[in-house]
């Protein structure tokens, strides 16, 4: 039968769905009413996104609930590592390039050429 979703229940789905609505609305109203500013807002929003992603991975995709050996979980973690290297590395390189060659606008690498 449906091996991957064997342990899926309507209750866990509803719980995941409700949590996602709350997390989305929290993020939305934080921005809409400007309840936080600057780095505090950026960090909180990123945190909320990561929490919601984990909620969906666990309650909708059933990550880590498979039988041992948890090969799907392992693949996911390896992907996460590669993702951190690619995304983190790209941003690091581009922003440091930006800072080192920047004359006036400390914002973007493309505006510099104007």
């Amino acid at each position, binding site marked *: *039968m*449906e*091996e*991957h*979703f064997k342990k*899926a229940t*309507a209750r866990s*789905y*509803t719980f995941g*769905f409700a949590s*996602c*609505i709350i997390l*989305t609305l929290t*993020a*939305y109203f934080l*921005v*809409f009413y400007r309840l936080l500013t600057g780095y505090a*807002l*950026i960090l909180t*929003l*990123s945190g*909320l*996104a990561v929490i*919601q*992603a984990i909620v*969906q*991975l666990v309650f*909708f*995709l059933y990550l880590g609930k498979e039988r041992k050996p948890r*090969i*799907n979980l392992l*693949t*996911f973690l*390896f*992907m996460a590592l*590669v*993702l951190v290297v*690619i*995304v983190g590395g*790209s*941003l690091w390189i*581009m922003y440091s390039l930006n800072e080192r060659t920047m004359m006036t606008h400390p*914002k*973007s*690498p*493309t*505006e510099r050429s*104007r």
Partner: protein
Amino acid sequence: MNTEIAMHPNLALHHEETYEKTVFGFWVYLMTDCLLFGSLFATFIVLSHATFGGPSGKEIFSLPYILAETFVLLTSTYTCGFLGFAARKKEKTKTLLWLFVTFLLGLTFVVMEVREFVLLVLEGNGWSRSGFLSAYFTLVGTHGTHVSFGLIWMLVLFFQILFRDFTHDIRRRMMCLRLFWHFLDVVWIFIFTFVYLFGVI
């Protein structure tokens, strides 16, 4: 088939093993897709201030509209789960009903997104306007394309269930579809946060 089962009492077990392999293969595909989206996100973040005199996210994004889009997709991911529960009990009508509801919600999402794109292009803010808009259209458009392919998949599955009932093949396809659909919603969380919410700050 019957003689096959008589000769191989482990046939059910064999099917389960094939399921696991298929799920693993599909999962690996989803992970590589994640890397594709990750690269597009990195591109978008680098180019997010490169407006080149054009509009920034603050001027073109309407947050309430995006919130509605988010809830439509989130609800479709929820109904997609119930599709699986109905299929497990082999309730054909219920399965088709949930599949139809999920399809409609997915279609609503795609139509909303296309409307947003068309309005932007008509206002002269197409993908050729600035680096920011190129990255925006590429990232959100790639996600929208994935959702559209999911819709085609649902349509095919709908008619397969309607005419052929629940064979092992169809159930396997449905399982992959659920993984695909849930995965797309996970990607959308990050688009919602990093593109739209960060865009209007």
